[in-house]
């Protein structure tokens, strides 16, 4: 944001590039420092690298993994599970949230259920889901779906409920029918909150997909990490974790980009970018 202000105050192109590089360094410096410390633990034999492989060893393993198809295949399995569950959760969660906000009767039935199950770690249900759906995609997708559903429901509900009466009244006085109010007023108003809910749900989706795979699965990056750990190949295990972190980070940034574009009208549009 401050960079954009500088831009407006007429700084030269090279000065802006220099500022950008400095800003990037400020973010990267702590990470580099952390990696150097970590590396020195192994290099100076303070910790056995069999238990805590150094960043260099992990990097080598990561290079090895990326050239093969093992990690690609397993990550795509996990991604399909995470995004299918998340997608289903967004669609049904938004409607449940809208229903709760718009119908007091519906709310009186659903709201106690949401309250009671909100703090339940959904991974605790995985043994039960295995019993119902067996080991495989369905089980993992249902687990992701259940964990991603509630953040979307709750945020949609709050976004719709917070719609100022004057917006609804203005629309009504301009001839908007009650049916159209939902699409033209309530949902657009709730959109920033729905995006917040989706962002939280995205985080949950990755965590639960990986956990479900670690508990019981024949494929997926969670299982791969678990297998490497079981076999004591900690450098490969860490490399797989790093690849998950990268994928999750890219997914979150992509979502943020879409959100910022869709919400460019919203007051938080600038803050969200950071």
């Amino acid at each position: 944001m401050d960079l954009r202000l500088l831009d407006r105050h007429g700084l030269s192109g090279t000065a802006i590039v220099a500022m950008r590089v400095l800003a990037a360094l400020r973010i990267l410096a702590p990470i580099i420092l952390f990696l150097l410390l970590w590396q020195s633990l192994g290099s100076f034999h303070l910790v056995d690298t069999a238990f805590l492989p150094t960043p260099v060893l992990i990097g080598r393993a990561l290079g090895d993994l990326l050239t093969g198809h093992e990690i690609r295949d397993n990550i795509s399995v996990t991604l399909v599970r995470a995004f299918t569950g998340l997608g289903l959760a967004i669609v049904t969660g938004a409607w449940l949230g809208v229903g709760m906000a718009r119908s007091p009767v519906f709310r009186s039935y659903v709201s106690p259920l949401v309250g009671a199950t909100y703090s339940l770690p959904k991974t605790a249900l995985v043994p039960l889901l295995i019993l119902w759906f067996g080991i495989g995609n369905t089980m993992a997708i249902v687990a992701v779906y259940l964990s991603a559903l509630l953040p979307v429901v709750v945020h949609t509900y709050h976004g719709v409920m917070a719609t100022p009466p004057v917006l609804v009244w203005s629309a009504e006085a301009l001839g908007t029918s009650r049916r159209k109010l939902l699409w033209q007023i309530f949902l657009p108003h709730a959109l920033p909150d729905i995006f917040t809910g989706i962002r939280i749900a995205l985080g949950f989706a990755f965590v639960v997909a990986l956990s479900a795979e670690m508990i019981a699965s024949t494929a997926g990056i969670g299982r791969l990490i678990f297998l490497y750990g079981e076999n004591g190949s900690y450098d490969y295990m860490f490399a797989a974790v790093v690849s998950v972190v990268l994928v999750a980070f890219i997914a979150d940034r992509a979502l943020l980009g879409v959100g910022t574009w869709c919400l460019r009208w919203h007051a938080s549009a600038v803050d969200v970018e950071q």
Partner: protein
Amino acid sequence: MTTKIRICGISKTYLSDNGEVPALSLTNLDVNEGEFVSIVGPSGCGKSTLLYIVGGFIAAEGEVLVDGKSIAGPGIDRGVVFQEYALFPWLTVRRNILYGLENREYSPQQREQIADRLIGVIGLKGFEHRYPRELSGGMKQRVALARTLACDPAVLLLDEPFGALDAQTREVMQDELLRIWLETRKTVLMVTHDVNEAVYLSNRICVISARPGRIVEEFTVAVDRSIGREQVMLSEAFNKVRNEVWLSVRRQAIAAETQHGFAPA
């Protein structure tokens, strides 16, 4: 003169944690076609409530008739402008103005023409594609006014329309409203706490008592408004009515304060 709005025995009670709070009590008011009527009174006297009832946004005891017909809810015959602008933040200036037109039987060209004309009237050419958050308070209120005028309602309901603006912008906006009213002669019902504003703009002023609100006094303003703001506001006729209304509102405000001592709202 024909009666445009007839307010018959309106009462409104709100439910709160401390029981029932009477907001309005048996209010009667007739507004003639083409008349500009202001409602002034101490804050919390239920004057906005009365406007929301006429708008059809909240239900109340009693009856509101527009053109002799009882209202059943909000309608496009009554355009409304709120103090907090109430623009749709996800729509650009232009789309906000077009919003009400899209519910009506205009051709796309007609819609665009109306929008073009109104953007010109409110002086926001070049800002058509901005979002409301990028506008100042005065600009937002201009857009809100244009959005309401686009649908050409017979009645304008104004809820402290300039209350959130600074003193200079407020005067500019009052003059614009006056100009639009003189041109279109719409029936206007405005709620305000600004006595000068009420006297400057209205044909008639109703003073509402402290809660439960009730119309206690009425003043007719016979001022020639074609002579310009300075001449109007410095004229004896203006200041005589202004002082009378001010004293009346002051009496109600003092009554409200002593009342608040016993029952804070």
